[in-house]
């Protein structure tokens, strides 16, 4: 399958096996298969693999206790929200409590419903709000950048820059690992009086550097810039001016 034409053909062969090809395209493919041994072999391999997956790979049905547990959770969630979450939920804490405001819930919904590139500001702001929920703000609590930076080593396949601006009134408070729109990200947490700033960093290979641009979502301001193949997002409920000052400091530091 090194031949260029066949390289394009293989997705068609696959789509045909998957029953996703229009009759017109299927007819074109059939003509190609008549004289192409490579694609014919591929077609046989795909059909055979598909059959074996459906035959040999287990389909895991929900255990009865899970069905009962889900029904109980749904029933319990409806009238009140005072039920303590199961143990693991204390850790990831991805949910807004039921008593939470509609705006917050809607905002969180965006995180799950539209994780595409065009909606990144929503995803980032949602994550910031989610992180403000109890128990999810920080994985490593330290005001020392030399503690926070090594903490990320081995947890990410890139090294996010970690900086502290205590002297300037933006002390580093800690760090956290997140998963935003399908990619692993480092989150650095800074404090400003009673406000918190999250700086998200993830890899953006091939992206050229660009200066900060920003906006706001649900009362949270954000600034986004790209540097050295990394994408940066600063999010906070701080005023836009103060956040801009912080970002300026951060980029210069």
């Amino acid at each position, binding site marked *: *399958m090194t031949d260029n034409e066949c390289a394009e053909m*293989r*997705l068609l062969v*696959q*789509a045909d096996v*998957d029953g*996703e090809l229009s009759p017109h395209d299927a007819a074109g493919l059939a003509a190609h298969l008549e004289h192409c041994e490579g694609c014919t072999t591929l077609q046989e*391999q*795909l059909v055979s*693999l598909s059959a*074996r*997956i*459906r035959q*040999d*790979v*287990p*389909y*895991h*049905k*929900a*255990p009865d*206790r*899970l069905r009962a*547990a*889900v*029904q109980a*959770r*749904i*029933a319990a*969630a*409806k009238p009140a929200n005072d039920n303590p979450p*199961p*143990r*693991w*939920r*204390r*850790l*990831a804490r*991805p*949910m*807004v409590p*039921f008593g939470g405001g*509609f705006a917050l*819930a809607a905002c*969180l*919904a965006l*995180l*799950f*419903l539209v*994780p*595409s590139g065009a909606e990144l500001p929503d995803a980032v702001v949602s994550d910031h709000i989610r992180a403000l929920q109890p128990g999810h703000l920080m*994985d490593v609590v330290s005001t020392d950048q030399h503690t926070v930076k090594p903490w990320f080593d081995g*947890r990410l*396949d890139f090294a996010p820059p970690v900086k502290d601006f205590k002297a300037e009134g933006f002390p580093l408070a800690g760090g*956290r*690992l*997140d*998963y935003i729109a*399908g990619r*692993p990200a480092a989150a650095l947490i800074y404090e400003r009086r009673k406000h918190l700033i999250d700086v998200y960093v993830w890899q953006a290979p091939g992206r050229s550097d660009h200066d900060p641009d920003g906006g706001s979502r649900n009362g949270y301001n954000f600034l986004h810039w790209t540097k050295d193949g990394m994408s940066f997002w600063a999010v906070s409920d701080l005023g836009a001016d103060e956040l801009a000052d912080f970002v300026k400091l951060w980029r210069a530091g």
Partner: protein
Amino acid sequence: MDPPAGTFEQIVLPHLDAAYNLARWLVRDPSLAEDVVQDAAVRALNYFSSYKGGDARSWLLRIVRNTAYTTMAACRQGVTASLDDDEHPALEIADTADDPEAALGRVQSVARLDEALAALPPELRECLVLHELEELSYKQVAHITGVPIGTVMSRLWRARRALIGRRAEGDPR
């Protein structure tokens, strides 16, 4: 935000097998998968107002899928391991999700098909599980995984190429 009990349950409960199967294949641990499904069900209840009718299974599976990724990310952080002395094999999960190339390398040496599927990187694994086991269309898989149809096609292709190319399959490409 607060739909009547019967309606939500009528919509979600028939797809609990699909939800569990996807969660199980993503997090690869029975009890963690149950946690994922439970949490996804509660999330689904919260987002029920965003459900506009239609393909309920895809709607639910999309929430299950995102819940599973959140859980896997939490496990990768080692949070589960350090704060919760449960039986969840957090580090095992952390292991393969990190490096797709290494994961594909591991697939090459796995003889059993189900184990090879489990060893695929999660974004490839979920496409095969949804398409082959759940028998969903490219379009439905694209909706659930939040990527374009073209990406689903190339992920399916990469997943299958890895499975066909295994030594155990005898006749690599």
